[in-house]
């Protein structure tokens, strides 16, 4: 938002300068891309044979199987981590000191230790006691990955839920007790639903992290997407070498698409949630439906954000009508403002990205 406030609506000189920068910048970005492509070509990575491997049914099946096992780990670890997160957050908020301390210690320990360390330790542990563990012992790397992801992300999710529960207004809890609800009823029917709803975008952002972390299975040789693709690339020889570069590029693209899909879900829910909230507020205040939008962007990038731009926006209808019905002399003024609006339009378009879906940074891995 404030990006646009860092510079004025450019005048003729600045517009020229910006255009020069734009050309130079575009050339630089293009040059970078061309250089990368040139190098790839130079090393023979753009030969048709190298990319032809993806037409092979075996290669495709390998990638599909890898993708499916990645998704399997993600689904299981995601569900289990949410369950563990709920349990731990309730434990951490508990009135019993022993439970609270246990949950706090558990969360702090496993949140501070790198996930890879946990997964590796679990893997070695499961391999050591393989005989006694039955089903778990047979798929040591799978279960090490799932349990490791569950424990780490469960701890993070617990902190998210706790933040959500703490954000529920105190009056709600008091009202619940006043109605004669028990402690567990207050938690289950009042606090948790609101906490989950408020924290849903963050929870999903953490699920994106979970999805990304499934690639740690590569290190404990679990047959997920990355490992499957890598072993496959080692077994194929095209033009005398292993086609690692194209395989890594394709796998990276698959990961990026999956993560973007999931995080766009988070953004969508966030926007939906905030819209619902403004809807409620508008209804209570009995204001016209446009009002929240006006309040949302007092910093409209096209108009330099000043006090009068807000007033303009507020009675936009009347002002606009005044301008449009104004005499011929005012049309010139209108076109000139149009000119500046055009000048800033590209900047505006670029700045109008979806709002940052950054998860609160302390939740990041």
């Amino acid at each position, binding site marked *: 938002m404030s990006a646009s406030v*860092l510079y004025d609506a450019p005048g003729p000189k600045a517009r020229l300068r910006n255009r020069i920068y734009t050309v130079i910048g575009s050339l630089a970005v293009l040059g970078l891309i061309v250089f990368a492509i040139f190098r790839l070509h130079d090393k023979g990575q753009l030969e048709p044979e190298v990319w032809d491997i993806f037409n092979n049914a075996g290669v495709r099946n390998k990638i599909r199987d890898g993708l499916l096992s990645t998704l399997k780990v993600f689904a299981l670890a995601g569900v289990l981590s949410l369950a563990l997160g709920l349990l731990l957050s309730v434990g951490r908020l508990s009135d019993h000191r022993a439970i609270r301390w246990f949950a706090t210690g558990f969360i702090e320990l496993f949140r501070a230790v790198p996930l890879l360390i946990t997964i590796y330790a679990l893997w070695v542990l499961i391999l050591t006691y393989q005989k006694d563990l039955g089903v778990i012992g047979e798929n040591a790397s799978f279960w090490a990955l799932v349990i490791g992801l569950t424990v780490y992300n469960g701890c993070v999710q617990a902190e998210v839920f706790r933040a959500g529960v703490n954000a529920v207004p105190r009056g709600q809890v008091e009202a619940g007790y006043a109605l004669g609800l028990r402690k567990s009823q207050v938690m289950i029917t009042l606090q948790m639903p609101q906490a989950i709803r408020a924290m849903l975008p963050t929870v999903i952002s953490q699920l994106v992290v979970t999805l990304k972390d499934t690639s740690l299975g590569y290190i404990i040789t679990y047959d997920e997407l990355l490992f499957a693709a890598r072993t496959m690339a080692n077994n194929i020889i095209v033009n005398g070498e292993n086609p690692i570069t194209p395989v890594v590029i394709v796998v990276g693209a698959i990961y990026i698409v999956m993560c973007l899909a999931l995080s766009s879900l988070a953004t969508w829910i966030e926007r939906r949630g905030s819209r619902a909230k403004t809807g409620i507020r508008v209804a209570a205040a009995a204001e016209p439906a446009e009002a929240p939008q006006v309040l949302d962007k007092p910093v409209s990038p096209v108009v330099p954000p000043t006090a009068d731009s807000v007033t303009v926006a507020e009675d936009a209808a009347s002002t606009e009508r005044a301008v449009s019905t104004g005499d011929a002399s005012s049309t010139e003024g209108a076109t000139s403002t149009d000119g500046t609006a055009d000048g800033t339009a590209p900047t505006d378009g670029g700045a109008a990205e979806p709002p940052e879906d950054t998860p609160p*940074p302390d939740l990041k891995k």
Partner: protein
Amino acid sequence: MNVLLDHLPEFREGFIGTILLTLASGALAMVLGIVIAGFRVSPVPPLRFFGAAWVTLFRNTPLTVLFLVAWFVVPVIFMPGLSPWTKALLALGFYTSAFVCEAIRSGINTVPLGQAEAARSIGMTFFQTLRLIVLPQATRTVIPPLSSIFIALTKNSAIAGAFSVTELFGVQKLLSDKGFDIAWIFLWVAIGYLIITFTISGLFRLLERRLGVAR
């Protein structure tokens, strides 16, 4: 218990390795992150596009994939003959720079609008506004997220150990391959990481208190 005492040199080297890798890639990530954040708020569209593409690319790629790229793609295509340490530094630094960039950008967004407006109205250019007015004030709000980004970086540096860089995960792997009890190794390695992460959060809290102003 004996694992630690018998293999103190290994543990020490791993510990120092983790710290050095974290510091170096943290510095790289800070520099890149500030530059990219500047790109993302600049008036020049291609730079903004570049910044957005950078952040999207590095934030949505698993770090393991980046390590694979650094190990098997970068040496072949761009620069052959990098040491494993440099490659790990590049992968970690680039990955973290995307998060640093987002933290700084949201910090910029929290600086009151009036500040930038005032700077502009006394005739400062974009760079002056950013350098003299907005970024110094953004620093304060950026410090808590940066602290957790660096803690995450410390933890992420464990992946470098799997790619034969000397650090704490490498020690764990080495010793467990030698057949020592994994529980004790895990405990000591975990304590090593706890020391580093607590130090980081302590330092940042100190910094926060130093820079804090009454508002």
